[in-house]
């Protein structure tokens, strides 16, 4: 499991999925709508993905398609994918989609992710390479985490290229100390 310590993987696994319990479970207070601490068969609960995934493997629950991948999103992406606010739906849209696709049994999530990524990728790279300053444009707030990583990688490669051409100071303040300097007391 190469991603055990990976922080992004852990946060992706925390995404909420709606499940239906096929078997009862007692002694757990995970269902907020039930009065006792038992979960009945057939009750609909919102669980984080890591729990839903394991329970599905043991056939205790069945997963539904999450709302981030439903028909509305599909239509919006087909219309104009570059403007769809994917981050508010799911900050790890692509990763989560890749994980969900084999479990939910919906055959069209894969092509949806691919088409969305293809059209947005071009936008992300052109903006990153041509932005004259590093101030965040309004475009950045609708990008998912993976796209933001791409954007930053492109920006840093542009900055490195410019530095190589123009020459800049060789030594820089260590990045861990942050950009803002604390005022001396």
């Amino acid at each position: 499991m190469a991603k055990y310590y990976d922080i992004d993987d852990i946060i992706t696994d925390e995404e909420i999925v709606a499940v239906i319990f096929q078997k009862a479970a007692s002694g757990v207070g995970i269902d907020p709508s039930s009065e006792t601490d038992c979960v009945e068969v057939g009750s609909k609960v919102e669980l984080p993905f890591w729990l839903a995934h394991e329970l599905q493997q043991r056939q205790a629950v069945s997963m539904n398609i999450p709302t981030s991948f439903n028909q509305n999103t599909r239509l919006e992406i087909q219309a104009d994918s570059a403007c769809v606010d994917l981050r508010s739906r799911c900050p790890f849209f692509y990763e989560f989609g890749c994980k969900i696709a084999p479990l939910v049994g919906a055959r069209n999530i894969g092509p949806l992710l691919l088409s969305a990524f293809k059209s947005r990728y071009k936008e992300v790279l052109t903006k990153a390479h041509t932005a004259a300053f590093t101030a965040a444009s309004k475009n950045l707030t609708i990008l998912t985490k993976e796209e933001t990583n791409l954007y930053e990688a492109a920006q840093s490669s542009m900055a490195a290229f410019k530095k190589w051409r123009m020459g800049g100071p060789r030594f820089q303040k260590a990045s861990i100390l942050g950009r803002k300097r604390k005022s001396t007391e």
Partner: protein
Amino acid sequence: MYGRKACQLVKELASGEKGQLTPYNSDLFDQVIAECSQHHLELQSLIRKMQEEGLDVQTTRNADHYGALIHHLSLVRNKRCLMAYMYNRAEIIRSLIWKVGPVLPQQIQEKLSHTEEEYFKKHSGALQSYMSRLDLDLTVDMVPPKDPYIQVRVLDDIGVVLSDDKTTNFARHSMHFLKRTDAEQFISRGLMEELTS
């Protein structure tokens, strides 16, 4: 419960900028450990209940079994979040020695826990002893410079510093012409800046 607090801990680590440390959140860390004990207790009580009913714990799949399973999974998830938190912080601390040098600046020191400071000191000590055996300073710049001397402007009050054969007074805003190796450690700590004409 059920991994939410542990995920909060991990998200806090991710919320800092890339490569930056957030202050060590010992409260949340202890709370997650307390949750682990709670999950363990509930797990044990459910297993005991199954044993009292005379069911075979290994193969029965009743409601208690699934409840115990959920507690077990939450425990494993909490463990993963705690381990990832420590592991990623340790990685950043190890890289600190190469970037900032063997002495921690104050603003970073207040973000570390006590054990992390110990870890830094021991790691830095190990590196120093290795370098002294090789008789080579590995933390300097890898690229050979064009000019051994460099012009710097002092940003912070460093005071009088002994270097090789002379003592220089590094007052704020003064400019000096120094050897590159001497200036490097001050620049990486943000106390001086290089002047490129």
